[in-house]
């Protein structure tokens, strides 16, 4: 059975990948952009994907890789995650190592680990946070409507 991977702190370095060429000011007005404005991050087959206006994210729970693309027109606060246990709805914290704000027009990649070991088949929902804001659930890549 597949388990979420545990990573050593030493390996959990933030990797910011500069993807887009432009970076607009945080003070610029937010625009509601369609998901197609993103570079269409490709999730792993058994991973999760989040597509919303100006925000795209992928999560490979097995590999511990979490990527966020921001095209909202402003910086996004530090991303976070939590899981809901499919059996009872219990909340399972996920640590996003060295989480940091994601500038507009950029893709950031982080390493993650769940606070509790959980088998992938027992994950009910994976939920995306930016700072204090709950952005709602990812969808399994296999069922991605996009």
């Amino acid at each position, binding site marked *: 059975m597949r388990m979420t991977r545990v990573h050593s702190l030493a390996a959990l370095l933030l990797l910011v990948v500069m993807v887009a060429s432009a970076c607009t000011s945080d003070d610029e007005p937010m625009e509601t952009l369609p998901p197609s404005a993103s570079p269409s991050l490709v999730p792993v087959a058994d991973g999760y994907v989040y597509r919303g206006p100006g*925000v795209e994210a992928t999560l490979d729970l097995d590999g511990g890789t979490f990527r966020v693309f921001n095209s909202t027109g402003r910086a996004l606060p530090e991303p976070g995650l*939590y899981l809901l246990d*499919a*059996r009872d*709805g219990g*909340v399972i914290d996920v640590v996003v190592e060295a989480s940091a704000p994601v500038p507009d027009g950029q893709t950031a990649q982080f390493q993650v680990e769940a606070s509790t070991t959980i088998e992938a088949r027992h994950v*009910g929902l994976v939920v995306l*946070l930016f700072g204090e804001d709950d952005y709602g659930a990812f969808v399994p890549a296999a069922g991605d409507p996009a």
Partner: protein
Amino acid sequence: MRHVGRVALAAAAVLGAVALTAPVAVSQDAGSELEQRLIDAACSMPPLLLERTLRGYRPDRTGEIQLLPDEPDFVGHGGLPHSGPWDYISRVPLLWYGPGHVPATGPLERRVTLADVAPTQGELLEDFDFDAPDGEVLHDALLPAEQRGEPPSLLVVVVWDGAGTEVLAEHPDAWPNLAGLIDEGVWYTRAEVGSSPPSTAQIHATIGTGAFSRTHGLVAHQFRIGERMATPWEAGPRYLIRPTIADLYDRATGNRALIGVSATVAIHLGMVGHGSLWGGGDKDIVVLREREGAATLGAEGIRWNLTSNVRPWFRIPSYVNDLPPIATYFDPVDRIDGRIDGRWRDLELDGDISHHGFRTPARIPYQTRLVEEMIRREGFGADDVPDMLYINYKLIDEIGHVNSMNSVEMRDSIEAEDANLPVLIDVLNREVGEGRWVMALTADHGHTPDPEVTGAGVISPTHLGTLLRSEFDSDGDEISIVDTVQPTSVFLNVRELADEGVDLAQVADFILGLTKGQLSGETWPVPEEQRDEPAFLAVFPSELLDRLPCAPNE
């Protein structure tokens, strides 16, 4: 890391420990005269109304400014809204009925909420524990376990959308069948939805999850996801951040249980939950009649369907549009006023305004015929694995918006839903078997009385937005400080507000000083004698809710 889900499980912590998110914050200076005035305004709310408001508040999704008109005043324009913490919207009928499982107790005089529905259903299921975040098992709605025997084969929830306690009380002779069931089951005379604002999406989610809005996440029909405005089901079930009992129970049975919904629009789906989005879940049966791509959440189509936003997670049976058309049920509706003229009172039955009959009582037997077919063909209640079926009848809500709860059309609509009740019970007895099912019948909210009946001062959200822009939006750019004005809150562009050098306390204080005359709308002008009265009883930054000294302890 702050964790919304964890906060949801620790209600007490919500009141004191949640960090604030708005870039513009009210002064933290406890001695601030302005802040103290706003706190006083918030604490002037009756405790029960404040409690309901707290249960519906999330700092990340709720509007920045709370509005509370003085009952019977309300914020609205066009169709009558139903949004606010007052009893007339919050109080709902709640009947539990199921011979062999539910005692014939009759009325019970105690306060319960719709968060109690799901855990009470869970108590009826064998070898399944459901830990509701905010609800409790209504033990007095159930026979003692040793007297119940086998679990019921089918659990049914019926929602008469919009049929709050005061709507029924306005037409006391229009629901004899429901009244006749009171002494055969358990009838909670002080049932309420539990949180405010009590619109359709959030209360259906409360029914399904056993959680209030602050916990399950669907706090209103418009709310924030990050800084943008969103609607509850625009992304399917992804903004619902607690599982429903159906999500958990279905999975616990290995998806052997049948889970189904007969309703009208996606905002009813909080009853059932996530379908196959929930890990290990399957596509539950959902039949709606929503207009694809509609601008409003309640827009209906004329064929049963699933819209594209929910289609990935649910399934719709192929036969649903092969049943008799709605015109089959026109004749008794045509005869209601004693004339055979192709009309329901003054409304042409097959016209555009009546939405080709779907805005008339004919839709009730039309939908029940579908429910019968679903039960029979899908096999609800047919085996030893208990199933769950959720039904929303939306006519009363529709008529409340368009004609008002005081209208003769409302009486007709209640009579239609009530006349349908024994038909549904006959279907259940015939298809599932007597003594093999349990029903909870309730409503998701009440309705606002006609202002001409109550003398309410109706506050225009449009005018409030205009006044706010005029007062605070002076930098000449094209960005408004106001995102939207809703009946219970104002969503502000806090970045733009900061550019203007204004904070939330100043905005709240400004609104608190407005009169009804300044905010009078066109549809229902404020009566002349009320024009100089304050428009609101309380206005304050929502973030104060987390630190009010008067906040009730739960």
